[in-house]
């Protein structure tokens, strides 16, 4: 970290994460990684890559398959002064570790009256689209966003993959970083040195006048693609990417809806009780309420487990044409 001019290069989302991990480990010896196959294998999705060769097997530590134990060990290591970063191979397996995530990590600072901190990061990939079926494809952000004490981020761009992770590592609280499998190979511009993205700030990815689309994860790029198509059709859309789900930058969302009068909320997760329900609820009880020209619409994954067959898997979550169609309806009919 000696250069002073911050160069911007093209990296993949996975490389950007790896760069953040490496920089954090270089900057602070308390930072270390552990998880299943993060060492010599380089991570199930290749995210940790060669880090074990650069930092050794102590700091890039392979674990047995025991998610609850891994997260619990991260909690203990954090309590005893380290800054652990845990990789859970698929976010679906956070179910195994939910006690340590929700009952321990999230609550300890509060339960102990502030006498202890649990500065840890839990990285896990979510999402469908790889044919991995129902137990390897979920989008579980709503679970975590409902747990007081956790912070939750969902990087949707390559730069955010690095920037949000660096901010998460700095944070004195447990932060759940939900990556997306389909994004790992996507490329984008990333600042070499800094590039921290503060937690709790949404990004306005595009500004328009007819409707506001709020989207998370892989739906951000789909919403942007849809917005391009809509523009060709004379519909002008704002796209808001909350980036951090907890704490949520509700101000940016509300402002955008005030400006456009319509809201289309797009998520991959099943509709019922998904995170966009929270977004809809906050819009419906915000100053934007008085500006609404149309119902607050959600476009979500179906309320089904993710199926294996590619044609079924595609049908289970919103695709670009679905977004275009729904946005068009919302604007034309209201």
């Amino acid at each position, binding site marked *: 970290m000696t250069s002073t001019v911050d160069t911007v290069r093209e990296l993949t989302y996975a490389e950007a994460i790896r760069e953040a991990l490496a920089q954090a480990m270089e900057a602070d010896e308390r930072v270390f990684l552990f998880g*299943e*196959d993060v*060492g*010599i*294998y*380089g991570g*199930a*999705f*290749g995210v940790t890559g060669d880090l074990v060769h650069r930092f050794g097997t102590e700091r890039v530590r*392979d*674990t*047995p*398959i*025991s998610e*609850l*134990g891994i997260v619990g060990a991260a909690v203990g290591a954090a309590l005893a002064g380290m800054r652990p970063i845990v990789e859970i191979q698929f976010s*679906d*397996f956070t179910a*195994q570790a939910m006690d340590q995530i929700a009952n321990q990590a999230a609550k300890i600072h509060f339960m102990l009256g502030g006498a202890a901190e649990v500065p840890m990061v839990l990285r896990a990939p979510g999402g469908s689209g*790889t*044919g*991995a*079926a*129902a*137990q*390897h494809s979920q989008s579980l952000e709503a679970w975590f966003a409902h747990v007081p004490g956790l912070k939750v981020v969902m990087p949707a761009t390559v730069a955010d993959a690095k920037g949000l992770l660096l901010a998460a590592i700095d944070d004195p609280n447990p932060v759940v970083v939900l990556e997306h499998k389909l994004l790992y190979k996507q490329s984008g511009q990333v600042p070499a040195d800094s590039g921290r993205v503060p937690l709790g700030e949404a990004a306005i990815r595009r500004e328009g006048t007819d409707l506001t689309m709020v989207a998370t994860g892989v739906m951000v790029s789909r919403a942007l693609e849809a917005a391009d198509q809509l523009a060709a059709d004379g519909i002008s859309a704002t796209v808001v990417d909350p980036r951090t789900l907890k704490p949520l930058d509700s101000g940016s969302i509300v402002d955008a809806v005030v400006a456009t009068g319509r809201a289309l909320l797009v998520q991959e997760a099943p509709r019922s009780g998904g995170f966009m329900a929270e977004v809809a609820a906050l819009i419906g009880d915000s100053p934007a309420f008085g500006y609404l020209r149309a119902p607050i619409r959600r476009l979500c994954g*179906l*309320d*089904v*487990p993710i*199926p*294996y*067959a*590619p*044609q*079924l898997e*595609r*049908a*289970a979550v919103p695709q670009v044409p679905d977004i275009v169609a729904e946005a068009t309806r919302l604007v034309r009919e209201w």
Partner: protein
Amino acid sequence: MDLTKDAEAAQSALRTMWTIRRFEEAVDDLFGRGLMHGTMHLSIGQEAVPTGACLALADGDYITSTHRGHGHCIAKGAKLDRMMAELLAKETGYCRGRGGSMHIADVATGNLGANGIVAGGVPIAAGAGLAVRMRRQPHAVLSFFGDGAVNEGAWHEGVNLAAIWDLPVVFVCENNHYGMSMAVNKAFRVERLAERAKAYGIPGVTVDGNDPQAVHDAVAEAVERARAGRGPSLIEAVTYRWKGHSKSDKNLYRSREEIDSWRERDPITLFEAAVLGSGTLAEAELERCRDEARDAVRDAIRTANAAPDAAADELASAVYAGGPS
């Protein structure tokens, strides 16, 4: 049952092992050519375990399976065409294209399902054993899992429940030396995983997982014990997977030599040599087993390919049993 002495049993074992081998090779090929979706965990090199184990089971017995479950499914009696149809995302697949490789199952033959969750099937097996016991059925439940599963909390809890309640469950660990890339000797501080059995007060044995006879004998004894109400057993079958863990595997965690040394201990070759050596089967009979397996897999692919693709229109109504809600 002496598989190497009894011609019928030998043929059955051999046909099953070849069928698994050919099935997995076909999957590997279809996947490699982009004709199959998702990810696949192949069991080439491990065929002796499901083969030997399932030969010790009877109708009505249950199994639970794993992400590496094609072999279990075949050995328990599933139809190849419906398996292949599942992997090819067809409406005629066992799961109507909804489950794929990691959830493949022929429930009718007692397979309660492959499982994408490591150790997920272990407490489920205990529960099936409890049901069998409570219904006073004569069945046994066999739970397959890998070495990696043994360190999961689910494994610990499931095995303990079966142990304290004397449930008719046989826990079969396919120790192929790695949980993905994690070597058994790094993940455990015991020499033999079967040693873990003592912690639950149940018998534990380690057998050569490349020898269907050894697997069969250990499972048969455990099944007998289970049926007699004397509780569960743990069997560690030591074997090896030839292929990578899944498609993303670059095999960085093991050496070429290690893989080669295990290929030299090919369970099928060894078994063929044994039955030939003991004079139980002649070369022509071996050849017929091989051909039958090859043809069966080819037929399955043909039948599956001709079937209609899984249909997306009924997705939402497929979530709940007993009609839409």
